[in-house]
């Protein structure tokens, strides 16, 4: 059985591609039809939205003093929200991606009826929807008009030769062709119109795309951009939350470790010294034995404290930096480690600590579970990101479960605004990759 375990912590979807790029893999004619559909429908929708927005806004503003205005405005905002949703759906045909929906203010459970009614008024996105209703009319109308004119001009031009025969012949007037010196009569006129029509047809996809993009950009900025902002904030908050949890966890673990370790030993040491004090009067030889045992207790306590402080931040990392600390960790490993470390400058302390623990925890895991004979470690800075990879040739099957230390590692990495990915099919090899922010 082969199972692959992939952990991707970064939930950010790729949604930052340029706006003007249409849906992938479409032919130009299909995109042209989509864009045309989008711009042709933009006008009627924008018109209705505009009317609703302007009427609702002025009616609401006028009746604000008697209180009804609040409800009228709220109602207008809710209707505009419907238009905004429709526009977000339509945006998909231009942008080729589902449009993110910003979160709207929602009435809380304990709110009064009045407060409930006017909830949309307190919501920034609702007012952006209204603004779209007003501004979108301008871009929508322009996009519609230009698109219709361009289509008509292009097809009218290339079919001029056909329908010109029904035009009344009027030799007195100057035609376009005669004005620019192509000669008088129908013949040059036909050729000119054909040329212009062909040129227009050639430019048609570009022009329509431009018009669709213009209207779509406005819609996107007003209706969707806030969603991205909100998502970034949520992402940052998620990182902070993880950092808080990781910190609280490690403090609690530290408390437990101190309680179970050095503190117990010191209490025992006190007991033994108390006994020795009593024994000194009665049986000095016994007292000597007790003191010897107490000495051993003291030594063990120091050793335990030392290993505890290494768990917080290894002294060598504090004193000599990441590279020295990593080399120390490699030297401790019971297998050869092939390392590539390429970090040009000094890193922030929390990044160094995270990198150190990722590598040393990974090495500990490899030593404990995989039975690997060889491990490769890479710590490479690429721009503002730091890539850490630990790959072994062992048995694989690593799990992000409790007890393997990988879950804790995950939290540490997330706290440093990074992602941790572990692939470990049964039979190996196991590879652990962390991607961290350098600042």
């Amino acid at each position, binding site marked *: 059985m082969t199972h692959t375990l992939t952990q991707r912590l970064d939930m950010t979807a790729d949604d930052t591609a340029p706006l003007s790029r249409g849906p992938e893999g479409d032919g130009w004619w299909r995109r042209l039809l989509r864009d045309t559909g989008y711009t042709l429908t933009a006008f009627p929708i924008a018109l209705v939205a505009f009317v609703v927005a302007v009427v609702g806004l002025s009616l609401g503003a006028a009746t604000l003093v008697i209180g009804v205005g609040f409800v009228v405005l709220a109602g207008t905002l809710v209707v505009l929200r419907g238009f905004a949703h429709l526009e977000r759906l339509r945006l998909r045909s231009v942008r080729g991606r589902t449009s993110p929906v910003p979160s709207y203010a929602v009435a809380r459970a304990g709110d009064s009826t009045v407060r409930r009614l006017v909830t949309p008024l307190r919501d920034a996105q609702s007012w952006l929807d209204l603004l779209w209703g007003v501004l979108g009319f301008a871009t929508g109308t322009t996009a519609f008009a230009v698109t219709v004119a361009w289509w008509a001009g292009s097809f009218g031009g290339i079919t001029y030769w056909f329908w010109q025969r029904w035009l009344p012949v009027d030799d007195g007037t100057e035609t376009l062709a005669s004005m620019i010196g192509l000669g008088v009569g129908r013949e040059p006129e036909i050729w000119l119109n054909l040329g212009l029509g062909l040129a227009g047809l050639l430019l048609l996809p570009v022009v329509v795309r431009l018009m669709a993009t213009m209207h779509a950009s406005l819609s996107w900025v007003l209706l969707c951009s806030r969603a991205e902002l909100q998502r970034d904030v949520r992402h940052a908050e998620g990182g902070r939350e993880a950092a808080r949890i990781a910190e609280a966890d490690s403090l609690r673990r530290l408390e437990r470790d101190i309680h179970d370790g050095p503190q*117990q030993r010191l*209490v025992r040491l006190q007991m*033994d*010294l*108390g006994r020795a004090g009593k024994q000194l009067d009665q049986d000095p030889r016994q007292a000597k034995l007790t003191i010897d045992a107490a000495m051993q207790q003291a030594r063990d306590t120091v050793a335990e404290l030392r290993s505890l402080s290494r768990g917080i931040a290894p002294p060598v990392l504090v004193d000599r930096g990441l590279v020295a600390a990593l080399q120390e960790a490699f030297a401790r490993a019971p297998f050869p480690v092939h390392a590539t470390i390429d970090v040009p400058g000094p890193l922030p302390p929390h990044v160094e600590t995270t990198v150190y623990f990722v590598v040393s925890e990974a090495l500990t895991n490899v030593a404990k579970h995989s039975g690997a004979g060889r491990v490769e470690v890479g710590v490479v800075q690429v721009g503002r990101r730091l890539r850490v990879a630990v790959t072994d040739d062992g048995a694989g099957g690593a799990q992000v479960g409790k007890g393997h230390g990988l879950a804790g590692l995950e939290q540490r990495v997330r706290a440093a605004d990074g992602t941790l990915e572990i692939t470990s099919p049964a039979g190996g090899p196991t590879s652990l990759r962390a991607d961290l922010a350098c600042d």
Partner: protein
Amino acid sequence: MRLVVADDSLLLREGLQLILSEAGHEVVASVGDGPSFVAAALEHRPDVCLVDVRMPPSHTDEGLRAAVDVRRQWPQARVLVLSQYVEMSYADDLLAGGRGGVGYLLKDRVSDIDAFLASLQRVADGGTALDPEVIERLMVRRRDPMERLTAREREVLGQMAQGKGNQAIADDLVVTLAAVEKHTQRIFAKLGLLPDDAGHRRVLAVLAYLRGSAPEYSAPDYSAPDYSPG
């Protein structure tokens, strides 16, 4: 005397056992978690149970709850609770029944072996042994009335609150028994307490006074100098 010792650290269990056996006491059972402590105490019916607060399975105040449990099933049980930390609420739980024969000491106190053995004896005799630090915290809260007492009187009050009898206080402060009696009378007069020499009742009276009213005590006091959350 016969004892049951409960502590999840083998290291400390051994240490306690050595101290107790060198003092001529017998440890009849030595256990490492709450449920087996309750079982051992009820089975062996020792003169005193020595129990650590933090033990498995819960790793929280397991030992304390086990001690309360034992005293519910066997009201005559004498329990001395040892802890790494002074927590007022722990002492409360133990004293809640209003019966003597309980103690609450910091583990550090064990190293003063004579004092520890004396506390143990007091608990075995149905008295009370409260850690000086517990008493100190109570006295800090009642700063105003405490200022009416002289330094020596405060010292005597503290010793009384720990559960010591007049003779023990006299020995400890190196004064005569008569002097201690005079001090206690003056303390009771100044604080408006009824003089009562009957061992545990006196302790309870002093403690009740130090706590002030019950509701005031039940709320955590954030202004106390070394209050630490969690």
